[in-house]
Structures are given as structure tokens and as C-alpha cells.
């Protein structure tokens, strides 16, 4: 027997979370220590996680979030048994976990993907960059070898990234002002700007309005808008190898 870990919550957090019709969650239970708890699922040792489990992981976190602050575990974290979760995850880390739970209480993360028109963006980047144009002339032609072309593409990607981020800063000034914090994330491709915002739950409707406004003013940009998620992008936490008898060490 082993445990798959989903999240850390306060001890009083309802686990499993209240059922939502039409949404099926894996069988969850809580492993508790003092004022904190880990949300876990029993799995067979050697069980292989699937892509459905990854989707299920996010669904669990989403539903847990409806009842209070949630610190998400990275998907795939597992422990051999309840005692090891108590000793190595909860007991040694409790003060920091409680501090983080307080920090994110009442807040959620929302994300936006801004998909720019690639050709238009590239034209603009090229138009404003003489050096890039001459590099393209040298390294983009039929005689250029693969390495040269990859390097050219890499340079173009860098310039496109700068262009995209500057534009996104401008376009997203409304949502950024509403958010407590915001950060730029690694995008799926260079013509997409992916941003995460930490926003107070009670300001979500304002955020929705702000996004609607951006969409209205810039119908040429495709915006994917998701949330509320646990504060993934604003929580960086590693529990470093805590031996059962020794003090734990922290790093983040």
C-alpha cells in the first residue's frame, strides 16, 4: 500500500470535499497532524499514474478550494504510509505550512493565454530590427545549414518573446492592477503569452469583467482564461529529505 498526495489543507478542511453532481473524484481521505492535514488516496505500490489521474488531480484541488485554502502537491508525489506523511511532510513542516495556508486563504490563481497572430508579430519584430533582418538574410537562405537555421530561429524566438511580453504588459494592465501578484509563465509557444494572477476570491467577478474588456478591445487576440486554481505559480516549496528523527530542513 502507498499513498498518492494531492494537497495540504487545514485540519478542519472537509475531506473529501462536498460532492458536486456530475463530478466524480477519486476516494480521498485525510492524514492529520495537529492543525494540518494531507489529502491522500490509497494506491497499490507500483501503481502507474495515468493521464486521467493528472486531470483528476486538478479536479480534486479545484473542489478542495471551494472550502478553504489549499496548498497543491505536485502531481506524482507519493509516500509509503500514513506515518511517513505525518512525520516527514506534516510534523516537521507544520509552521511553514500553516503560514502558507494563511497567506493564500481567500486567494486563487487565474491564468491567461494571449495568443497573438504569429505572422503579424513576426513582421513587426522584423520591421523594427535591422540586425535581425540581416541575420535572417545570412542564415535563413537555402544554403544555410541546420545549425545556422536553428540559431536564427532561436534569435527570432527571443525577439518575439520580448515583443510579446511588452504587448501583454500593456494589454493586461487592468487585470494586473486587480491582482495581488502576477507573473509571466513559460508559454506553450513563443507567440503565446501565459500569465498567472493571484487574485482575491471576492474580486474574481471584477477580474472577469477586466478580461472581458480586453477581449472586447482586442478581438484579434485569442485569450484563454482559466481558474480559479490553487496558487500554483506563487507557491514554491520543497520539503527536503527529512529523516524521521532529525530536524527537517526547508528550502524554497
Amino acid at each position: 500500500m502507498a499513498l498518492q498526495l494531492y494537497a495540504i489543507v487545514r485540519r478542519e478542511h472537509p475531506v473529501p470535499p462536498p460532492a458536486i453532481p456530475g463530478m466524480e473524484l477519486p476516494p480521498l481521505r485525510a492524514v492529520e497532524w495537529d492543525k494540518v492535514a494531507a489529502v491522500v488516496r490509497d494506491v497499490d505500490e507500483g501503481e502507474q499514474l495515468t493521464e486521467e489521474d493528472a486531470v483528476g488531480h486538478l479536479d480534486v484541488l479545484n473542489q478542495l478550494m471551494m472550502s478553504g485554502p489549499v496548498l497543491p502537491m505536485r502531481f506524482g508525489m507519493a509516500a509509503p504510509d500514513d506515518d511517513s506523511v505525518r512525520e516527514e511532510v506534516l510534523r516537521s513542516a507544520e509552521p511553514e505550512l500553516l503560514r502558507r495556508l494563511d497567506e493564500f486563504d481567500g486567494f486563487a490563481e487565474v491564468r491567461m493565454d494571449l495568443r497573438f497572430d504569429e505572422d503579424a508579430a513576426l513582421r513587426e519584430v522584423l520591421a523594427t530590427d535591422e540586425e535581425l533582418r540581416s541575420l535572417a538574410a545570412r542564415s535563413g537562405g537555402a544554403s544555410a545549414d541546420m545549425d545556422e537555421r536553428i540559431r536564427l530561429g532561436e534569435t527570432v524566438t527571443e525577439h518575439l518573446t520580448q515583443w510579446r511580453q511588452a504587448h501583454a504588459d500593456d494589454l493586461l494592465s487592468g487585470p494586473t492592477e486587480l491582482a495581488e501578484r502576477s507573473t509571466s509563465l513559460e508559454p506553450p509557444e513563443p507567440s503565446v503569452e501565459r500569465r498567472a494572477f493571484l487574485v482575491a476570491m471576492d474580486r474574481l467577478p471584477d477580474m472577469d469583467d477586466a478580461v472581458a474588456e480586453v477581449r472586447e478591445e482586442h478581438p484579434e487576440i485569442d485569450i484563454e482564461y482559466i481558474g480559479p486554481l490553487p496558487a500554483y505559480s506563487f507557491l514554491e516549496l520543497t520539503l527536503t529529505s527529512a529523516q524521521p528523527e532529525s530536524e527537517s530542513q526547508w528550502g524554497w
Partner: protein
Amino acid sequence: MTMANRAPRPQGLADVLEVVLDKGIVIDAYVRIALVGIELLTIDARVVIASVDTYLRYAEAVNRLDIGSEQKPVGLPGLVGQIEHTGAKQKTKGALEGVKETAQDVMASFREGLTEQRQARERAPVSDRRALRRGEEE
């Protein structure tokens, strides 16, 4: 009401995986046991493929937009098999953090693959390449 414009989670499986695998609390080696069955390295290889493919695509695009070219760049389909092969070999490492370390290896073998496959191929249309990146999204 603008609520309908916000989705509870990303549409594509690849994006869901990025959310749950990229961040979150990490437990170091002692307590963690491997629960790896999902094709983590395949996902990683997919990312690498996407980035080299992207570079080549942009090299071609600026060429097309700026000075024009009749040359067809090397396409990906012939290379995918090689990456997957590498992925399967590395997967025996098993541990979650092994994944990122091997990205460079995958990249290296990808470059080798490129050199071996100089002959130009017909490039896959955009929709196909997106499908490739997003893999088994359906």
C-alpha cells in the same frame, strides 16, 4: 455576466499536465516513492520537439516574410520515432526529477537526428504540428 468566459481548467490535456507537473509542493527523495506510469518523458520529449521545431519554423517564417525562399525545411515526422525511442530508454530512470535532467539528452539526440536527416522533407501543416505537440490530448 462574464463568468462563462472563464474555464475551471485548461482545455487541452497537455496544458493540464503542465499545470499539475510544473509546480506544486515537492517532497524530496526520502518520503517520495515513484508512482510514475504516465509518459512523463514522452511529454518532455514533446516539449523539446516543439522547441526545435519552433526554431526551424521561425527561421523559415522570417525568411518567407523578409526575403522569401523556395526551400522546404526539414519536417518532423521522420524524427519523432527517434525521440520516442530515446524516451523509452531514459524512462527506466523512473523518478520524477529524472525527467528534466534527461531533457538535455533528448535534445542532444534530437540534434544528432537532425544532422542525419539532412534531406528535406515536406513540412507538416500547422494543424498537424499542433496535434503532435499536444499528443494524446483526445
